């Protein structure tokens, strides 16, 4: 059996519902922006968003009122500064209140890893001397049954759906990732369903015995979506648009400017292809 190939609209409609717990993973690299935009277009509500670094993709989902809760470990615009929509939601409950489930990178990595291994919790020497555990009941302690040491514990993360972007899949649905992988693999294997948008669908993956591959039998759907990680990047395909990340600061700082941008570039366009075409036309 082959993993089904769906359009992005079909895949998001089938796998992500109002109230779903969804992780769009990818650490700086391969962030599934096209999928995030499609969720906005479909008007999803009350999502529990999970991502180590919310990045612009969640700034957009939060600003458009799609999210109820956020599990995260670093909520800035990388190399630039604040995520203003995330801040507005937390500081002023605009457009809606946002519950936070806040961790450190190490804690969230342990939680994804536990999720992938179907263990109920992840273990780390972490959160020492910090105020996070006092503000998050999902950070607890466990005692080593051999040494008596006290260690930090975090509950496993098992999203209803994880969405990744990758360079390529083969026709059976095997997915290969090249370059920085972040917690993509762990988030993928922790999820109940896994949707992967890819730059390219090929007859055969490049041979690489120890490469990062997600085998077709753990992939629920493959979506062919070139440019799907823009303005983040797909190593070997296109670079990160650092200038856009810098421009986003001004766009997102103002509620009206943000909404105008989202209407022009996402809600007012049918799909990611149209968005990229519009950017190209503007640049020309």
């Amino acid at each position, binding site marked *: 059996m082959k993993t089904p190939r769906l359009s992005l609209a079909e895949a998001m409609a089938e796998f992500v519902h109002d109230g779903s717990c969804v992780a769009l993973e990818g650490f700086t690299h391969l962030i599934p922006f096209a999928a995030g935009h499609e969720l906005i277009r479909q008007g999803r509500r009350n999502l529990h968003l999970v991502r180590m670094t919310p990045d612009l993709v969640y700034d957009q989902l939060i600003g458009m009122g799609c999210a109820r809760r956020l599990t995260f470990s670093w909520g800035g615009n990388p190399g630039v500064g604040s995520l203003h929509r995330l*801040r507005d939601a937390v500081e002023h409950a605009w457009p809606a209140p946002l519950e936070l489930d806040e961790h450190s990178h190490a804690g969230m990595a342990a939680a994804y890893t536990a999720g992938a291994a179907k263990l109920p919790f992840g273990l780390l020497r*972490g959160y020492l001397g910090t105020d996070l555990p006092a503000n998050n009941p999902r950070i607890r302690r466990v005692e080593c049954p051999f040494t008596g040491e006290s260690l930090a514990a975090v509950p496993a993360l098992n999203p209803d759906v994880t969405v990744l972007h990758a360079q390529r899949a083969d026709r059976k649905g095997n997915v290969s990732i090249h370059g920085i992988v972040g917690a993509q693999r*762990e988030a993928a294997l922790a999820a109940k369903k896994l949707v992967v948008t890819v730059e390219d669908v090929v007859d055969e993956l490049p041979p690489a015995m120890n490469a990062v591959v997600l085998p077709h039998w753990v992939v629920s759907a493959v979506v062919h979506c070139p440019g799907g990680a823009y303005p983040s990047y797909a190593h070997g395909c296109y670079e990160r648009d650092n200038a856009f990340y810098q421009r986003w600061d001004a766009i997102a700082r103002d509620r009206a400017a943000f909404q105008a941008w989202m209407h022009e570039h996402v809600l007012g366009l049918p799909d990611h292809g149209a968005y990229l075409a519009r950017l190209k036309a503007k640049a020309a």
Partner: protein
Amino acid sequence: MSAWTRDEMMTVAAARLLWDDCVCFVGIGLPSAACNLARLTHAPDVVLVYESGTLGTRPDVLPLSIGDGELADTAACVVPLPEVFAFYLQGGRVDVGFLGAAQIDRFGNLNSTVIGDYAQPSTRLPGAGGAPEIATHARQTFVLMKASPRSFVERLDFRTSAGFLGGDGERARSGAPGGGPQAVITDFGLLRPMPGSQELQLVALFEGVDVAEAKAAVGWPLAVADTLERLPPPTETELTALRQLQARTAEAHRRPVRLPG
């Protein structure tokens, strides 16, 4: 060579603290500039680890994000992020961790989470990221922060990462394996923990700065070491290497990207 800026001197001062072969867990911004400056000058074999999983990178230009493709292209290898944190950082394989924050207190504890109350913050900051465990596990940490009474504070609004906690050995008693903040590099000079109390004290000043200016920039009564070092200004080699690095970086980031699709 034109006169140097305080930003440049901070980067140079941080770079000088690194030694050849030391393994650095690097953050974006000043730490990244400092580590790469060290690599391009006196410490060619410094090992740079970014939390994106790129081990032993030798970027030609500074990355804007912690996960720019340049870091992967020039790395000895790229490993999943959970492994960087579990096997390398928690595994005790990191000599120096760099940290920054919105607030620091006299014991080197850091806040990068919120200003105000956690539940109702006046300013929501980006949050912890890798900091709490870098602060715990690196053999020592260096903090890079411009000083002002709003950032060098009597009392943190939120403790994100442990320095020496309340001082007087409380950190060691807490079981933290790493040695904590052994240097705070600011835009006027250098603070280091006092033996015993572990309170940060002024130990070195940049050229052109006096103790009064340093004290004015710090929100607690700043202790001053008996012998105060005067940090030599950037050498021509350092300044040239830094400015060329920054020029290469600016040029690379100015190049428009080709849109995909």
